[in-house]
């Protein structure tokens, strides 16, 4: 399996290549398998640090990035392993980064919350909630000035919706008509607190309305719904019609961070959302439509786990960075 050797999930170069629904399922499985492996490695103390997993939110990452071209730019947040993978990040280098190895994307200097996979168009994650929202505007501004027809996408959670720069960014994106797409992963919790305790605005897309930005609130665990909303958003951005706000209602099936006991959530709520698992759900859709064979389903998961195992092996066999590297690359 060449893909396994390269450690790369089959990422689409152009959105047209991505119409094969099985490939969508395969990519969601890669993210799921990757993060489950990360969780296991964290429990085994093979990976350290502050890890935020997006298990349960894979349909947003794959649904959004699947509608983008290879040179479109994506900005993430603190929970962004899936976004990077969906944009085409190499699993080996990503896993090595989380494991702090010299072969990682950032030579171990970034870590989980600061992943950069520049060659794929995944520009950066960030440890500051809402911090990348303005950056994506800058990417969109530059794209428009260069006339390259590129769009910029930024992922953020419902917690970012209460930050100042979020509101400033909606205002400026609208004012300047920038080709940027705001993707809100509304998973109902900002860290340990439900959205209802942070704001009276239950649907963050309402903020977009205030600033004159077209918006859609979709079921973020339905990959087809995400793709549909994104398709319109991307078309508008490329046509010079400005920004769109896509709010994806979803749920993280793990804690805020690995090790979070999650006592702030009812078990029944977790069980309800497990029933809406985006991967199982899309599998059912494909079965119903007879769009894939039993072998396809089996391989989607099996291949993903094999890729991820290979990535973990690569990462853990990789050398640590030399201590002297601490002081390098401070200056460009």
């Amino acid at each position: 399996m060449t893909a396994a050797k390269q450690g790369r999930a089959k990422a689409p170069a152009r959105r047209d290549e991505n119409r094969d629904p099985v490939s969508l399922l395969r990519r969601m499985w890669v993210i799921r398998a990757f993060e489950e492996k990360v969780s296991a490695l964290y429990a085994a103390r093979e990976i350290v640090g502050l890890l935020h997993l997006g298990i349960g939110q894979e349909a947003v990452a794959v649904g959004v990035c699947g509608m983008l071209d290879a040179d479109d730019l994506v900005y993430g947040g603190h929970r962004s392993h899936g976004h990077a993978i969906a944009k085409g990040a190499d699993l080996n280098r990503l896993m090595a980064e989380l494991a702090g190895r010299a072969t990682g994307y950032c030579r171990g200097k970034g870590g989980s919350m600061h992943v950069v996979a520049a060659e794929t168009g995944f520009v950066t994650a960030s440890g500051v909630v809402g911090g990348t929202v303005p950056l994506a505007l800058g990417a969109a501004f530059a794209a428009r000035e260069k006339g390259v027809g590129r769009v910029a996408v930024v992922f953020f959670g419902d917690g970012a919706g209460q930050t100042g720069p979020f509101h400033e960014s909606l205002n400026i994106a609208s004012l300047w008509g920038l080709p940027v797409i705001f993707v809100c992963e509304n998973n109902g919790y900002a860290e340990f607190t439900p959205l209802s305790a942070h704001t009276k605005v239950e649907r963050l897309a309402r903020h977009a309305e205030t600033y004159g930005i077209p918006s859609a609130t979709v079921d973020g665990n339905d990959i087809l719904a995400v793709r549909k909303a994104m398709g319109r958003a991307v078309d508008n951005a490329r046509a010079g019609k400005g920004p769109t706000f896509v709010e994806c209602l979803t749920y993280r099936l793990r804690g805020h961070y690995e090790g979070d006991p999650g006592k702030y959530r009812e078990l029944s709520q977790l069980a309800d959302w497990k029933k809406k698992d985006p991967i199982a759900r899309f599998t059912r859709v494909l079965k119903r439509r007879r769009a894939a064979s039993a072998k396809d389903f089996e391989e989607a998961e099996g291949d993903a786990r094999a890729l991820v195992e290979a990535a973990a092996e690569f990462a853990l066999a990789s050398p640590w960075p030399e201590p002297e590297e601490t002081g390098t690359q401070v200056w460009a």
Partner: protein
Amino acid sequence: MAELSYLEAIRSGLLAEMREDPSVYVFGEDVALGGPFGVTQGIAEELGGHRVVNTPISEGTVMGVAIGAALSGLRPVVEIMFVDFITLAMDQLVNHAAKLHYMSGGQLKVPLTVRVQCGVQGNMGAHHSQSLESWFLHVPGLKVVMPSNPADAESLMRNAIRDDNPVLFIEHRALYFSRAEVPEGGSGLAMDRASVLRPGTDVTVAALSKMVQPALEAAEALAGEGVSAEVIDLRCLVPLDIDTLVESVRKTSRLIVVHEAVEQGGIGAEVAALVQERALYYLDSPILRVAAPNAPVPCAPPLETFFVPDKERIMEAVRRSLASQPA
């Protein structure tokens, strides 16, 4: 060679880079109209409004927009109208601009220039008069320059824009209309070099930005008292040209550091630490700081005047230094 004001020299450097490099863009409040002091006056008319982008009063986001544009290959110059308002953009500057090259293992670079003006002038009070440069010394990944004269202003501006790192370019409002001869292309001095403005043998006075002028005046007056003071303009705080300072102190054995920022945690403390590490046994007296009192900037004229270090305070420090002998 032309006589330019400090403000015109900044514009001249900016405009020269914008003419040469179409990826240089200006962002800021009112910049298309020239800004409150006129630094960007006429640029939009010459190069097109799209290169000089007026922004809402959203400092944090505007800084982020500029960083994102820099990551995408532009060379943005962001104007924050008063350094006091940079507080609103600290997250983007400190957590993204300064760190993305490092955190990405060298994959990204942020060729960003941040123009701000600082300092006391015009009884504007504590929210429009501060000198905050030393905050940024504590953030590896940010360069900090503070020109004291038109020739340096022009060349430091050009250097800052060409630099592949984020550079904080701190202007002093009270210098905007001071005039001096500016050679073609500015002073020509590299960004990381301090400049010895007046050679001397008895004491070194290191100053920056607007404090360079009273330091020179103090040196002139001290010459009348038979004291030979060497005056060094630091010009660039990060990277700091410590070699030039150490060389001077090894010669004079005495050092006074002068800044308009408050004394506590200022550049004077950093200079003192670095110089004693490399030249302690050359020193004949303690390194002294002449700085603003540890208080917010007051508004009333007599308070504001007292707040800012002047020629007399520098002379007094020099005398104190000379009076102090090793045991």
